[in-house]
């Protein structure tokens, strides 16, 4: 294939050629970054929670009137929910992974430490481990005697009376490895607030936090604190995935029957919780996909338009070449090579631009560096788009009969 004649032709159409190159470069740069962003979102949406997501339903209720006996009522509710056919376990929990909001604490390794070692999401409530399906890799679950009521614990913390506080804690493996790299965590002590000690009795395989994931998505801990509805806790019910709808219905009816003077604030499967948390990411991934598709279409149509123009403009030259012995394939390849050359220059410039855009995004939007793998992907996409778009006009050029050369107009 002769590249020199193509280059000399392009030199005569500098502006148009550069416009096409610029368009390909911009498209390449934006597509690389957009595809990278889509990948980031999808990866985020895949984040594990550490709990048995498809086996859980949750109900959040609030009392209409003051209930001084809320603790006892919680026991009644829990016992009644356990009786529902299909129910395997029932918990009362202050929060769930990805539930948005929820308590967190600064954790220290030393009682006199002034800067936190890390911030951990706090999970507490009755019967959490069996219900959520949390897996212990070391140690044990809490024993009934270890639980302290939330109101008692808060009052004890306030008065500095450490005896009224829970003494033990279960932490995630990620947190254990961050606190004591390469050592066993069991039996070690961590401190909250002004040196309040908690002894680690268990290590979980994983449990994702309930609040902002920025502080370390897998730094979570479970504390033996029991709660009731007045502290904003929710009932979490474990059942077989296919029983969820029926168990949820039965549980709502049962709770209403026990005490009609309360309002359901939230109800649904855990899958709903997860879906709500990642709704924005899903929407963003959708928007990005739409923009990438629109960009590629616009660029492809632009190539079609310009190539058609060039073919129309060079009809006579094509006729002359054909008359002088060029085959249809020669003409076809000419336009294909021309497009390949323009696309290649565009892609090279586009790569540099993509890198620049990524630097800008890294600076302003907490994004990681664009992995090198996206560059060849973007290049191949644009080469393909270019070749597909130019095929029609190029075929039309190849169909120009040699006789055109002999016509005067």
């Amino acid at each position, binding site marked *: 294939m002769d590249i020199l004649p193509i280059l000399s032709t392009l030199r005569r159409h500098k502006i148009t050629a550069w416009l096409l190159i610029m*368009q390909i470069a911009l498209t390449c740069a934006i597509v690389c970054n957009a595809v990278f962003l889509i990948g980031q979102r999808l990866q985020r949406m895949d984040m594990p929670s550490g709990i048995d997501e498809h086996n859980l339903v949750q109900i959040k209720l*609030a009392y209409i009137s003051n209930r001084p006996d809320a603790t006892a009522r919680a026991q009644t509710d829990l016992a009644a929910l356990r009786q529902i056919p299909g129910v395997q376990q029932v918990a009362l929990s202050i929060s769930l992974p990805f539930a948005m909001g929820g308590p967190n604490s600064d954790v220290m390794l030393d009682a006199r430490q002034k*800067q936190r070692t890390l911030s951990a999401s706090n999970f507490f409530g009755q019967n959490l481990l069996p219900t959520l399906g949390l897996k212990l890799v070391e140690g044990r679950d809490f024993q009934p005697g270890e639980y302290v009521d939330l109101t008692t614990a808060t009052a004890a913390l*306030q008065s500095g009376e450490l005896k009224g506080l829970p003494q033990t804690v279960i932490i995630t493996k990620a947190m254990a490895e961050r606190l004591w790299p390469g050592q066993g965590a069991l039996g070690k002590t961590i401190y909250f607030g002004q040196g309040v000690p908690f002894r680690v009795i268990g290590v979980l395989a994983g449990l994702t936090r309930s609040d902002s994931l920025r502080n370390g998505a897998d730094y979570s801990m479970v504390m033996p604190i029991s709660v009731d509805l*007045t502290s904003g806790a929710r009932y979490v019910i474990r059942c077989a995935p296919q029983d969820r709808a029926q168990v949820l219905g039965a549980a709502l009816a049962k709770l209403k029957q026990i005490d009609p003077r309360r309002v359901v604030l939230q109800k649904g499967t855990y899958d709903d919780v997860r879906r709500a948390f990642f709704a924005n990411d899903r929407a963003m991934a959708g928007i990005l996909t739409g923009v990438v598709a629109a960009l590629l279409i616009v*660029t492809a149509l632009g190539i079609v*338009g310009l190539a058609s123009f060039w073919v129309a403009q060079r009809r006579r030259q094509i006729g002359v070449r054909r008359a002088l012995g060029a085959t249809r394939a020669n003409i076809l390849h000419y336009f294909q090579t021309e497009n390949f050359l323009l696309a290649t220059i565009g892609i090279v410039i586009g790569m540099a631009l993509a890198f620049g855009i990524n630097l800008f995004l890294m600076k302003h939007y907490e994004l990681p560096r664009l992995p090198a793998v996206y560059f060849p992907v973007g290049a191949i996409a644009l080469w393909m788009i270019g070749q597909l778009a130019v095929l029609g006009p190029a075929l039309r050029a190849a169909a120009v009969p040699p006789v055109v050369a002999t016509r005067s*107009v």
Partner: protein
Amino acid sequence: MFAYYLDLALRSLKRNRALTVLMVLAIALGIGASMTTLTVLHVLSGDPLPGKSGQLYYPQIDPRDLTGYLPGKSEAEAQVSWIDGMNLLRAKRADRQALMTGGTVAVQPIRSTLDPFYEGARYTTADFFPMFDVPFLYGRGWGASEDDSSARVLVISSQLNDKLFGSKDSTGQMLQLGDTSFRIIGVLGNWHPTPHFYDLNETDYGENEGVYMPLSTSQDVGYDHDGSVDCWGNGGGGKRVDHSAPCTWLQFWVQLDSPAQVAGYSSFLVHYSQEQKALGRFQRPPNVQLRNVMQWLDYNMVVPDDVRLQNWLALGFLVVCLVNTVGLMLAKFLRRSGELGVRRALGASKRALFAQLLVESGVVGFAGGIGGLLLALFGLWLVRRQPASYAALAHLDPTMLLMTFLLAIGASLLAGLLPAWRACQVTPALQLKST
């Protein structure tokens, strides 16, 4: 002349239908995408209280202990504790001041057809209404005496009034919230400050609350509060924060009308912090901030990152569409070199040709603008279907409507400049000879 050019332009555009459609489509797509995201950004970064927000300030102090303290780096606390809030409120150093927090209350409708429901509430002090220029449909807000006596009085939103009383004047009626009965003394007019600037713990762009009651009353009755609680030392958060607990959970706003007052209030806050440190309540050196509404929204980065990102993306898309249009227009104009050569030979000046070609690109821009507007309306409809809290706000206002057209025509004129200039450079003789 313009009419003649317009006629020429329409004829020329009709001749190459496919190319014209392609150009119009490219502009429409670019404009549609940019206008959708620009409108969302415009709505989200708007001023919640135009004309007033410059006088409203959010004082911040730092009452925490030394744990986690990084000199020069630690930001002042985002909220105030009960003790500091009450101290600042009672000091009355500003023209107006209000201390507040959010909550939810169980409303028990009198009409038995409605089930009890939970409604967002604001527990605040008397100056809230005059300070934020809150309009009233019926009745009025409460005064200092109601604050002092923890009066069982309520102000409700017009939406809640519609729901409970069918939009009739409900002042003087009683409303049962949980176990306590309240007298309604006021119904708000149409008031939706967006973003929800005075308490960003609630969803930033959501509805404002339906029930307003004196802060003292809410504490007296013992209602839970909603929102974030930040504790230090041995403070424990929760739904009911002890008044003496080392926890911040209230918002405090002041109205300061002149720069001198702002400076004065700033030094008052420093002075207050020093005094509290001397008393042993504060441990950190004074760290105060006094931001007005827009600065406070900016500091909290209220506009979601995703929206900004989408905006950049759309602008990039618009640039690609424009480059695309420039290329296509250049191709189109150059193709008509013959025709342009004839016009030049017949006496048309370069200027006249230039004007004619610009009219043609303007027509493309206008058509693209209409297409872009339709696409933007469709885009905004899609945004409204998104799950985000701001979704419902995504509507095109007259400013943005005008901007769509200006952007479309401006962009296509810009795109037409280079091709038109290039096409005007034809040598008439050469073009005439070849035909």
